[in-house]
């Protein structure tokens, strides 16, 4: 739908390249990471430091799995011939999902920083607001992915 009439007949277009089942799994993973980060925040609010740390680590882990899935997808596309500069679809796709992946990575760095702070005993319910802000950032990343996944991957071409 997005690239109709813009890229000619090619075997390097969206229909041919996307592996929807694979991407669905990584989408699901990211969605669940939104849940875990909320649980981390509520646990911290209750001063359940141990549990908040567990949820924090899970969120970072799930995020890392998502990024890993993206990296795998990118390298698979590249091996099949779709590079960044190959055609309009390649450019647009890699830029959009690449920027998203960078934002997820930054989020993982945030989460791990908080995890390290927690290990050093500096993350208590008094710093709840800080974690909540990071949680909002993480949800933003997730929400953008919801839109990207639907429009880029799922809309019939």
């Amino acid at each position: 739908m997005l690239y109709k009439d813009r890229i000619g007949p090619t075997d390097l277009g969206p229909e041919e390249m996307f592996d929807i089942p694979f991407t669905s799994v990584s989408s699901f993973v990211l969605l669940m990471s939104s849940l875990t980060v909320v649980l981390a925040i509520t646990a911290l609010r209750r001063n359940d430091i141990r549990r908040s740390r567990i949820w924090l680590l899970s969120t970072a882990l799930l995020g890392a799995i998502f990024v890993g899935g993206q990296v795998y997808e990118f390298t698979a596309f590249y091996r099949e011939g779709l590079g960044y500069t190959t055609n309009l679809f390649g450019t647009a796709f890699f830029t959009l999902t690449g920027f998203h992946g960078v934002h997820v990575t930054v989020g993982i760095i945030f989460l791990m920083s908080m995890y390290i702070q927690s290990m050093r005993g500096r993350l208590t319910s008094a710093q709840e607001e800080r974690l909540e802000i990071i949680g909002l950032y993480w949800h933003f990343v997730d929400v953008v992915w919801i839109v990207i996944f639907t429009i880029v991957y799922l809309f019939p071409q």
Partner: protein
Amino acid sequence: MTIVESEETPLELESAEGEPPADKPLGAFTRPQGGNGWKDWLFTVDHKKIGIMYGAAGLLFFIIGGIYALFMRLQLSRPGNSILSAETYNQVFTMHGVIMIFLAAIPLGAAFANYLIPLQIGARDVAFPRLNAFSFWVFLGGGLFLLSSMFIGGWWENSPDGGWFAYSPNTGVLFSPSKGIDFFAIGLQITGIASLVGAINLIVTVLNMRAPGMTLMKMPILTWMLFIVQLLLLFAMPVISIALFLLTFDRLFGANFFNVAEGADPLLWQHLFWIFGHPEVYVLILPSFGVISEIIPTFSRKPIFGYPFMVFSGIAIGFMGWGVWAHHMFASGVGPVAVAAFSVSTMFIAVPTGVKILNWLATMWGGRIRFTTPMLYATAVVAMFTIGGLSGVTHSLAAADSQQTDTYYIVAHFHYVIFGGIILGFFGGFYFWWPKIFGYFLSEKIGKSSFWVMVIGFNLTFGPMHILGLQGMSRRIQTYSSGQGFDLWNLVATIGAFMIAIATAMFIWNVISSRKAFKAGETQAPGPDPWDARSLEWMTASPVPEHNFDETIHVEKQDEFWHRKWGKNEEGQVVRRATAEEVAHDGSNTNVHLPSPSYWPLVAAAGLPIIGYGLIYSLWLCVLGGLFVLGGLYGWVFEPVDDPNADDHHDDHEDGSHAELESAGVTSSGEETTIE
């Protein structure tokens, strides 16, 4: 009225508790203290100092951009001239546009916003003081980055040359091989960050930090206009950020966003740029509208006529500004339906501005007008902007615009609204608030004479351009052949341009000589309220003390300060209730905690231009710049909001040495600066 629920002890956020931070959390680097030396300007988080720095930088860039304009005018003063080659001329007019809009007009607006918004709403500072400092340093870095293109790689080799709106695919690698467009894209990306961050800061400030009793509809018009500007910036800056990213990736990494051969749309850049570009011009003009909405009531001794209409027309301008962007694209082949639709919407947007013009006139009507220098400038804005607005309405007719576009008629239009509307308004604002900010008057004599030189020069420069445009002189041409009838008016325009330069020099002279005269005791101190003005910033000493107000002001009416000085007797006549000196705070309550200075914003901001140079020249610089940014951000985040070393009771003094360690737990939040 705040949105965030304040707690019982508003000065102590929960997050401030916990382990008391060490007094030297990062080893050798101790936190800077307050005071007035060069370090205090470098590390300040005080909105007033930041506002002054924005103003100084904006004025400096205005002069640089003006010098570029003088070169252009010299080149065009005679047909067949060869002062500037064609390639250089392209760079000069591009840089003139970019500097004037992004490095002069926006920062001057930011200067007024930063200095005056907290004062006008009765607050201590903005919502996020360190972020405010970050904004300024990022802007300065980006501006210097842009200007450095002038001499890097040789004089005038690598400056952007694609016009200030840099249409792609023309600005892609194929047609613009020099590094100029890279400087353009990355430089504007950096200054864009500054604007966006500042917008968020000021929106939160206006929504959260108004004095008790000040509802939104009791705010001064200037604050309202600036608030709308920040909302416009919030939604418009991301669009240009995206466009610049696409351009940068096309140029640096071979992306295909503007590559027509691969299926890209040749109009994509134009749409993206103008979706940003049109709200941008309202970002430019609304601060000036706000400034004259403060000056005119003061010097007409009447409240602004139709306050709700002024507010709602400002909101309407902001909202409708999103629906007119393709009027910059009438000649680019968008098709008759789009052209017709945008033509109509452009005609509509003249209406709210017309409402404002009529309201200003109605404010002056029947008032006891004093034509001081600021009032002269404000009146000139009303007149000049009307002229520029009328030529703008002629552009809205797409059929007529097909003749006018890319001629000097357009140049005349936008200079009348930009210079006549924005710059004259800002100069009026300078004269109006100078006594408040710096504590001495600017000479009225020099002010009035420089005003006339400026206005006459301005009209001589841009008035004839209407004629030139309609006679067919195209814009952005390096020279023209004689015998087309362009010679006389071009010469007149050049003379006018030099008159503007003289007027600007007279302003600088005014600043220097007035300060000297004041220091020598020849002029009087202005006191808190030299103009008998209406809003809260006049209710404190001049220059404004570091803590702004001595105590929280409870606001009951719009123009609260005015109503404390003047009331009505039984016959309905206006009688004085109190003198300004009685009502205004004298700045003596220095027992106030202020947000501590910090150097992390500067560190983080310094990394961005380094990343910029890295993108153009060597990716290792990107790593270095990235380290600065990352380190700066981490240091910033983990720095306690207030310096535990700072002695609470002397934050406001010039003395800079405070070595006592505060007792744990009394670290109050400087980020939420409710006064109590």
